């Protein structure tokens, strides 16, 4: 018995010592690199590409849903951080600790990848350090069902349809025609609201003085909000948010026949409509082109291999990596080098053979930046809630808008 206790005591001691050592954070050796990314923000074959490009390094890609939680925890303690992190649309929130990231300009970034110019400032902090490089971007498209628009008396050809529904007023008329026929041409009023902000290259903050200044109380916000509320009041929207089960049902049940949204929503449209569907098309958005930024590839200053980390971060923003990410994951590339790629421009059976990539490429190339600031996501969330409350509880749009402005005009960038 005594012997048993002795053995268990020794085993316990060893286990405790090793587990505490593990908790204290492991170091990485010179040839090891770690990448953190959300599951959908890198291509499924990125490991193979990295192994080919960096044969001297052992690179681990961790797909983490809670990447922001993990990253924030690591940045607080300056430990347990990856070498490279792909951060979503909330990159500005990290500019406060920009010194914990590598400046790509100091590591040889010359934009030989041909990244579209308007996306680069969104990856720069106030001092102009290039913290992140875009791995994907969100040009907006007008997705519609060719068979249903024909039924409504509209042309089904994308160019002709875009010409017919070219202004926001045309879109509202089209939505009314769809509603009269028992269909819906607007998924979420918040999408319509965001479209209008992006078309005005506006995302609540003014950067003309260098520092972000809250300009929420502007005619752009009011026009976008009130016109979106108008769609709700006229019952022209399905009031379903993309990435929800309700949105899938609206598409699958042939109720939602058109919607405006960023190109990456193709990733939810295809499974909802059925991969073998060939009736969907995509056209330029009514009211002008719009594009928002997507994810950014960053390298952490704590990396033991800063040069290699920066190189990997730059590679993830390269045409080669982005082409694979588009093919595998539907992530629209932020590099103009791919916009004439024959493989990508070959046409997609889902869109009835239409060159949907070309439509988005044209939008992306001609877009202007709607630059976001750290507090932008809070305001976005409040706008979404306000519009939802109008839809769900029938609140008065005018007073709801005033409450929204009052509550968020002092949000800092």
């Amino acid at each position, binding site marked *: 018995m005594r012997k048993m206790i002795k053995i*268990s005591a020794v085993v316990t001691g060893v286990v405790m010592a090793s587990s505490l050592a593990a908790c204290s954070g492991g170091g990485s050796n010179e040839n090891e690199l770690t990448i953190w990314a959300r599951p959908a923000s890198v291509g499924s074959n990125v490991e193979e590409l990295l192994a080919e490009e960096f044969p001297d390094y052992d690179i681990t890609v961790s797909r983490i849903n809670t990447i922001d939680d993990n990253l924030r925890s690591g940045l607080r303690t300056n430990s347990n951080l990856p070498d490279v992190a792909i951060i979503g649309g909330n990159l500005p929130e990290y500019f406060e600790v920009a010194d914990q990231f590598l400046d790509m300009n100091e590591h040889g970034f010359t934009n030989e990848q041909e990244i579209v110019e308007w996306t680069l400032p969104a990856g720069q902090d106030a001092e102009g350090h290039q913290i992140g490089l875009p791995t994907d971007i969100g040009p907006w498209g007008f997705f519609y069902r060719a068979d249903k628009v024909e039924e409504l008396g509209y042309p089904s050809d994308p160019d002709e349809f875009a010409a017919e529904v070219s202004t926001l007023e045309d879109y509202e008329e089209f939505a009314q025609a769809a509603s009269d026929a028992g269909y819906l041409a607007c998924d979420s009023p918040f999408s319509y609201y965001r479209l209008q902000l992006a078309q005005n290259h506006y995302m609540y903050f003014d950067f003309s003085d260098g520092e972000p200044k809250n300009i929420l109380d502007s005619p752009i916000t009011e026009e976008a909000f009130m016109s979106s509320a108008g769609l709700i009041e006229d019952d022209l929207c399905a009031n379903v948010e993309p990435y929800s089960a*309700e949105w899938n049902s609206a598409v699958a049940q042939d109720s939602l026949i058109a919607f405006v949204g960023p190109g990456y929503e193709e990733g939810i449209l295809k499974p909802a409509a059925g991969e073998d569907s060939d009736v969907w098309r995509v056209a330029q958005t009514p009211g002008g082109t719009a594009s928002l930024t997507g994810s950014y590839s960053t390298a952490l200053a704590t990396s033991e291999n800063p040069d290699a980390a920066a190189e990997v971060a730059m590679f993830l923003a390269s045409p080669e990596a982005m082409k694979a990410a588009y093919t595998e994951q539907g992530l629209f590339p932020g590099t103009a080098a791919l916009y004439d790629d024959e493989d990508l421009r070959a046409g997609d059976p889902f869109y009835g053979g239409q060159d949907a990539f070309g439509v988005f490429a044209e939008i992306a190339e001609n877009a202007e930046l709607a630059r976001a600031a750290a507090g932008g996501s809070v305001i976005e969330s409040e706008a979404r809630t306000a519009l939802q409350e109008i839809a769900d509880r029938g609140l008065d749009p005018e007073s709801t808008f005033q409450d929204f402005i009052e509550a968020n005009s002092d949000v800092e960038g």
Partner: protein
Amino acid sequence: MQTTTERPRAKRPAIVKHWREYLSISPFFILFLCFGIVPLIYAIQLSTVSWNGLGEQEFVGLDQFKRLFTEGEFVRALGNTVLIFVLGQIPVILGALVGAVLLSNRRLVGRGIYQTLFFLPQVTSIVAIAVIFQSLFSRDYGIVNRLLEFVGIGAVPWLNSPWGVRIVIALMIIWHSLGYFMVIFLAGLSGIAPELYEAAEIDGAGPMRRFWSITVPLLRPTIVFVAITGSIGGLQLFTQPQVLLSGGTGPADSGLTMMYLQVMYLGTGSSASVEPDLGYAAAIGWAIFFVLIVLAALNSRFLKLNREN
């Protein structure tokens, strides 16, 4: 005659004498110290600052605790938590008790299959359940409203009205937890001697009389255990509303619970709906702790009264 003089042994402290035993049980206490006590002390310090988790901390004294009562969010979250608790947790405990009594009937054919089927939701991911409920209760596209329209009742705005949201969350709790509590009650019921029921039956006691006079009194410790664990779990509700409402808080914040509010202020996710403030999140954590302490005290009092009776 030989006498031996034993030298009195110096009394060693128990911790030295039984060092092996203490070392063997030490893992739990070391881990509890690292991941229980230290964070608790840190949470005290954190609740006195305003901090977004990345920049500089700003000392604010007790302002974070004042916010709990002045900004209205926490009071709303507390109210919702209690309402959803009443709608979900109380029916699930009562339902599980009745279900367990019915399933404990030895004459019931296929008891094992029923028990397995009732327990199945417990091992299903809450996220998956929430997504399915989102589909079922969708106003325009859900099967529940289709069925209600079919029988002439008309569509109900389940996820688009405050009470609808609370009811759907309560239904998720009931569906998910019923089997778990039922299994605990079944274990408690198996400890009641069948002779008691046989004797009562011979004396002419009906099923209801047997339930109230034998089952309930003898099952009281199990009922109290289920009530305590169910209450603590019920007040820490978070995943169900978060997934069901796609990261939102529902109409009139009807899906906002205490834990959900805390997670929001921790700055989780890429589309944070509030500016992260770890200090306020810590203060909310202390408020939840206080509510749970009050509840545990009430449960303890209830248990004591039961014993005395």
